[in-house]
């Protein structure tokens, strides 16, 4: 690890001020991703500003019936929070499918949103990687890309966003609140928080330098009865998804009145399946319709040399997640 200075701000303002003063500063949440990347020499912050203990640790109910979750609350505490479990079981289920209990205990919600890709070229500093070293090329484009994107990639970067939580947040239509250096806060839908790589793959998201994530906001409770997070992976825990699907259904008199559907492991951001959602809305919750939704979901996919398997896997995963969501009660 390279030498760095360490700050423990007493409040949010001190954190923001410290970040404003040092271009190489980074916020430190649970450190489960950042410290790993520092040991690998991928991240080289000159200052760490510990934010995990800042008082954004609550879960509060909003006037519209939705909830706001503090960004510094741990993944474990969030997933097991009684009102999250009952109102947003899709989110709980998804978060508990991530990493390991130990990592979830350390990880903060803010840090979780910002976890970086698992692309092996990104991790190995002697390899070309536009995300880590802009302009050096994309090693994965014509290399080992079996776990890379099938949607929304560019020649500059074919990496996926690896996390689980944000997939459920996408299906639920959540938004992210960030605090700027000048003291102003902004709230943006999660789909605008993440971005596609385009020709700036070094930017995972639309966060501006020094901005601090303070909260996640969920709209009024959705899918308390019919929900499922399907995560296909190489082993039963402690592995990232090859493909994952967060599915939520609202049923009214035997037809589907509302659908939330998003995929992980397929793009540079959690991939919302808007067309499949539209297809299912107003339809009967039948196996045929769920299977068709799977086909629609993958219609626009563009596989790379080694990840064509994600197409059938994605199709089946969408259909299965919907079947499971429907069957659940």
């Amino acid at each position, binding site marked *: *690890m*390279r*030498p760095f200075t360490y700050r423990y701000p007493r409040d949010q303002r001190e954190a923001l001020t410290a970040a404003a003063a040092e271009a190489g500063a980074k916020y430190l949440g649970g450190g489960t991703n950042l410290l790993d990347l520092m040991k690998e*020499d991928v991240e080289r912050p000159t200052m760490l500003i510990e934010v995990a203990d800042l008082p954004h640790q609550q879960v509060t109910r909003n006037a519209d019936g939705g909830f706001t979750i503090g960004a510094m609350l741990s993944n474990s505490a969030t997933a097991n929070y009684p009102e999250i479990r009952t109102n947003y079981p899709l989110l709980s289920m998804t978060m508990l499918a991530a990493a390991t209990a130990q990592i979830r205990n350390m990880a903060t919600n803010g840090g979780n949103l910002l976890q970086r890709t*698992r692309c*092996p*070229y990104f*991790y*190995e500093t*002697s*390899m070309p990687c536009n995300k880590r070293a802009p302009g050096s090329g994309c*090693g994965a484009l*014509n*290399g*080992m890309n*079996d776990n890379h994107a099938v949607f929304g990639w560019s020649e500059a970067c074919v990496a996926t966003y690896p996390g689980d939580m944000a997939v459920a947040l996408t299906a639920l239509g959540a938004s992210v609140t960030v605090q700027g250096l000048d003291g102003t806060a902004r709230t943006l839908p999660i789909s605008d928080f993440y971005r596609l790589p385009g020709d700036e793959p070094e930017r995972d998201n639309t966060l501006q330098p020094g901005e601090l994530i303070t909260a996640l906001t969920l709209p009024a409770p959705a899918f308390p009865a019919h929900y499922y997070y*399907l995560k*296909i*992976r*190489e*082993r*039963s*825990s*402690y*592995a*990232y998804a*090859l493909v994952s699907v967060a599915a939520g259904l609202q049923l009214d008199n035997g037809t589907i009145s509302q659908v939330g559907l998003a995929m992980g492991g397929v793009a540079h951001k959690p991939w919302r399946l808007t067309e499949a959602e539209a297809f299912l809305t107003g339809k009967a919750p039948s196996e045929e319709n769920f299977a068709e939704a799977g086909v629609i979901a993958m219609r626009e996919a563009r596989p790379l040399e080694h990840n064509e*398997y994600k197409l*059938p*896997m994605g199709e*089946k*995963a969408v*259909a*299965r997640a919907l079947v499971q969501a429907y069957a659940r009660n």
Partner: protein
Amino acid sequence: MKKLIAGTGDAISRVEGPLKVTGMAKYASEFPVENKVYGQGINSTIARGRITAIDTAEALRQPGVLEVITYQNAEQLGGYDEEMPAIATDTPMPALQGPEVHYYGEYVGLVVAETLEQAQYACRLVKVDYAAEEPNVGFEGARDSAYKPSERSDYSRGDLAAGLAEADEQLDLTYITPIEHHHPMELHAVIATYENGKIDAYASQQMVENSVKTLAKTFQIPESDIRVRAPFVGGGFGSKLNTERHVIMAIMAAKMIGRPVQVTVTRTQMFTNTGLRQRNEQRMRLGAKKDGTLTALGHDTLSHTSTYEQYQEQCGTVSKMLYATPNNQITHRLMPLNLQTPFAMRAPGEATGSFALESALDELAWKLQLDPIDLRIKNDTQVDPSNGKPFSSRPFVECLRIGAEQFGWADRPLRPGSRREGNWLVGYGVSGASRASPYQESSARVELSLDGGEVYAKVQTGATDIGTGTYTILAQTAAEYLGIPVERITVELGDTKFPDSPGSGGSWGAASFSNGVRVACQNLLDELRQRAGKEGQDVSVETLLLDNELATFAAEGTASRSEEAQDYSIYSFGANFAEVWVDKDTGMYRIKRMLNVGAAGKILNPKTAYGQIIGGLTMGAGMVIAEQTKVEPNFGNFITRSFADYHVPVNLDLAEIDVIFLPEEDKIANAMGIKGIGELGITSVAASIANALFNATGKRFRELPVTPERVLTTEVEAGVLQSR
């Protein structure tokens, strides 16, 4: 009153357990050696070429940095005595001797600093320039370079072609196993002291005596000037059999700096610098009569070694001897690639070879429409067909039969893909296993002391405990032969100052060490009886010490394999059963149940033995589920570089596990009737699971690991009628 002794065969808890759980058991990097400094290896970032320049200036300027060692200032070491030497556990291990780079991650330097953090940081600041060449890291393009590594590489009896010609049914299929890594929990580590021309090293090694040999050849000093200690080793799986280059670099640094140097290999370096199990392509040719009688068995293995050393895994070992077939042909070929030298990993040859053999037999059984168990029983033999010697004991058929009974084999789905449970397809699989039970001469010293009217004993041997339970079984052995309770016995291991022992490897440990201790105890008792004039009498050690007016007494003993053993083939045998549930759509599957039946001689301690087998089953399951090291085809590096990418099984992946040991004492193998179990436990596990996957789905998985991707993209075998 008769005391509770707890001899061999009793399921006692580990005698060293409390030391381990309280952190008192010291592993190599934990010794508080005074004045020690830290070394950190620098790894090459090309897979083939030469170093053209090294700039150490900035690294050397950092606080705490004491030295940067590269080939430019490294001492000249003793080298190999031939080109492409076949490496063993005692060969020299020269490091940092020249500018050539043979593989990605090879050590090109060592930074030594006051703290580990300083050393690690300074490594980033050493600038190494290379003239890179295109590496050879894949099989394609290298096939022409395949060569026969030694006379031992090939074996044949009868006439394979003739055997195939007379078969009613035959198959010719290729099975692939990927590069795997040992990854014991404890990182490789050493703390080396060099004083007055003598080396003293705490090192995480499986064989301390052979470490001394390697160091003597490498540093060209007498063996008597070298001491290696490894009282506790946190697993090895073969990777700690030989003395790897971090040990050499640490000693080199200790010489240069005049202070003890600690080098702990990082987890990422455990991929590049401490051996690996190579990728194997195994072509199986089987021929059989309608009734299952094998008429021919051919097993050709193609794998790789490095460009500077040779290591060959004998994948064909099991295919020579497990089944009676008159026509048998085994070959092994190697291609030199720009990857590090492979080295023995748990059941080298058997773990991988049995995947090919036991999968192929399952395919043959399917073709012949025979029960795979019947096919194996049909070809059972009590004589080793590879050398004509009788097996000392071979209850292989019993393993299969008892396992079938216990597992409920009769209930298996007869047609692949025919059993559904909701979204799951259910399948059963079986495989047979055998593993040689080698034996190595081993010595021990036993010292008695009388204290407060009670006799205590101390047992010392150069043997190691790599987490397997050596401390415990040796305490049990001494308790039994001395007739004193296990609590009064102290065992000391892993020091070259103790009587010679081969150390842990090849599943010879339990048999060899225990017999060594047995002979030491018997010698001690004989001497005491003789002195007391009580030859042949059954008297307690306490009485003998008192009779001789002795407060302490010690003796040594050595046990070799008997003459009789030479006339037999000595193996452990087993059978594995697995039940898998495969999701009908998504590529996911679960192993629901595993059963291992083993006939492995006398089980010294059912508890530690059980640990060995479930460890083997877990590793075998890992071979199927996910374990593989992936090589980047353009750059030649491993893209699996941590436990986040190299997937070993987690608890949730593992099934309900049952282990049965058949009661056995093989007195031909050795006087105590012990055989090896550590490697038997992994052998053929992968095949039992792959066979179960076929039974569930009708798909054959001839390449490991069986990832969700492979489940999804593999076609159902022709001829398997799906009943979905």
